[in-house]
């Protein structure tokens, strides 16, 4: 029972950290693409 709990805890921690990483990556790419679009608008006199 204790063995099961220990594995479960590691799994949950891994999943949470992995989820946070994926979320951060998505936010990063959104800001990057937004930045590019902003620059293109400026470059074209927008």
């Amino acid at each position, binding site marked *: 029972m204790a063995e099961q709990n220990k594995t479960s805890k590691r*799994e949950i921690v*891994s*999943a949470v*950290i*992995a989820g946070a*990483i994926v979320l951060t990556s998505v936010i990063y790419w959104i800001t990057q693409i937004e930045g590019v679009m902003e620059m293109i608008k400026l470059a074209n006199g927008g």
Partner: protein
Amino acid sequence: MTVLSVFESLEQGPIGTFVKDRGATFASIEAVHLLAFALLGGAVLASDLRLLNVVLRDVPSKTVTDNAYRWFTGALIVMLLTGFFMVSGIAVKCYHNFYFWVKMSALATGILFAYTIRKPLLSGDHSKLKPITLKLVALASISLWFIVAASGRWIGFS
């Protein structure tokens, strides 16, 4: 001793001087960096795409991930070495470059994640893990290494 002074002494030291001496030196080191990058990509993608059930679905996932680790580690070591040499050659420029720091953050996270979370998790029986966990771990791994690669390339453009 500031971070900037460390970068300055790196560039002015023996390694920085060696790398800057001839244009072909930096280019050759960079080429090796690129080749190791292909190998790292293969190891990461073979492993993570298997966990996402996209490739090699009829091969046990533990076989794929266990085999990939050796190559992942080997490629990573080559990349860290060549990367260190390259940074030495243009250290001050890197210090002032936003994407260099993005890359270093992603790289540090990637290495920590790979060896302290992913590896221990996958060293056990995969069937005992929830599918969602495996998929999240695979996605996180791919995302991190992709950001390392993309920001790395963008250093050259900024």
